[in-house]
């Protein structure tokens, strides 16, 4: 091959590979987030916001959302007090209200309210999770129930840089297994919010949440079980 032919080939090759490298967008199906998950996520953020800014109103609003959705706290065998319980949230709200009569009235009214959402009360579990740790939570579902499992990590936006300048964050992964350890559903997307939904067979099931990130996190696991209409 002559020099000019070689140069020509290289030039053409370079130009075509350069064109091929122009970024194209990978298209993936958007993650559908159930409305319940969005609401619970919002309530969780209100709790964080209220405690960060020492404001009563966000905590009162969060309690009202939890009440409206009929969230039931599951007793925790680890002995960890649940910072999302109505009692704790309203106690903090009272402290932050700093004697403001309107806020105190609202706290009183909210404390008296009864739970709503009798049709599909979500059960709530609160757990702390270290980097690399997997936590398990068991539950039982009847056959034919529509089950939603939602994980709401509290570490969103909480990221730090390590000594090499890399961003460290918490990243939760959710998997639900049946009694034979078969995977029923999973959500391995990046971030601290996970949600899966499936139709159940009568079974004892296990939720596994893994912290694939570098920071410890506190996560709330919600389980909804909705009987299917016949």
């Amino acid at each position, binding site marked *: 091959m002559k020099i000019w032919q070689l140069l020509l080939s290289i030039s053409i090759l370079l130009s075509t590979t350069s064109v091929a490298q122009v970024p194209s967008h990978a298209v993936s199906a958007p993650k559908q*987030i159930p409305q319940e998950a969005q609401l619970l996520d919002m309530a969780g953020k*209100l709790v964080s*916001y209220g405690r960060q800014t020492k404001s009563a*109103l966000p905590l009162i609003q969060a309690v009202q959302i939890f009440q409206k959705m009929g969230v039931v706290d599951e007793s925790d065998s680890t002995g960890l007090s649940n910072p999302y319980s109505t009692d704790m949230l309203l106690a903090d709200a009272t402290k932050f209200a700093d004697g403001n009569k309107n806020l105190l009235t609202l706290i009183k009214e909210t404390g008296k309210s009864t739970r709503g959402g009798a049709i599909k009360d979500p059960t709530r579990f609160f757990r702390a999770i270290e980097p690399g740790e997997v936590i398990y939570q068991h539950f039982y579902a009847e056959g034919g129930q529509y089950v939603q499992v939602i994980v709401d990590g509290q570490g969103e936006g909480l990221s730090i840089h390590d000594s090499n300048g890399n961003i460290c964050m918490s990243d939760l992964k959710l998997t639900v297994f049946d009694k034979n350890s078969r995977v029923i559903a999973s959500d391995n997307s990046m971030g601290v919010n996970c949600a899966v939904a499936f139709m159940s067979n009568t079974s004892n099931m296990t939720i596994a949440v893994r912290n694939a990130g570098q920071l410890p996190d506190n996560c709330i696991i919600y389980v909804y079980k909705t009987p299917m209409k016949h």
Partner: protein
Amino acid sequence: MSIKQLLIGAALLLSTSVFAQQTQPAADVNEKNIPTEAQQYQLAGQLVRYGYQTKSSLPLIQALQIIKSLNVTDATDGRSKEQSGTEVATGLTKSDLVSFDESQLISDATKFADGNKTLLALIKDTEKTTRGRSGGPMRANDRVLGGYTDTWKITFRGGETAYVCVIGDGDTDLDLYVYDENGNFITSDTDGTDNCVVSFNPKWTGVFYIKIKNLGSVYNKYSIITN
């Protein structure tokens, strides 16, 4: 000049011009490191939608308090917007209830309070609340038709973490894309909601194109805020 020399020249010119066109992206993605104020505005937007959905006063009051604390102001930086696409003709109508306008929020919160004295007093307190620090985020409230894409042309400062937060009225899915001046893709938020936020680090001060794509078949009223 011989044919050979001409061919070499043309080929070299082609390859260099392609290189010139393929400039480096003007920003690095700042995935998952969303500034606090963007997160707080998202929270306010979610509260607005929730308040209108449930016709409740308290979420609107809370949203207003967050917006005031952030000192969100209407954009005056000469940002421009273009629309493109084909309207989806479904004949569907939608209620035009959701608003991100502050005076409208106060008026609707008052309506939803339905005479409740405690809530009315809280609304009054919120109206009186002073704004947060100056130089807060800038906002534009707009609507994108079903099937359309709004493209905003906004300048971001180099060396400062930039963010774009879009919150819609909840009726359709909105996707958010960011491109630099040369059309290089920077980042996106394409989940199945109309609550989008992205963050990136511009390498130099320059224009960025923010595309908001409405995947639904009715218009979506949204609020876009940037720093």
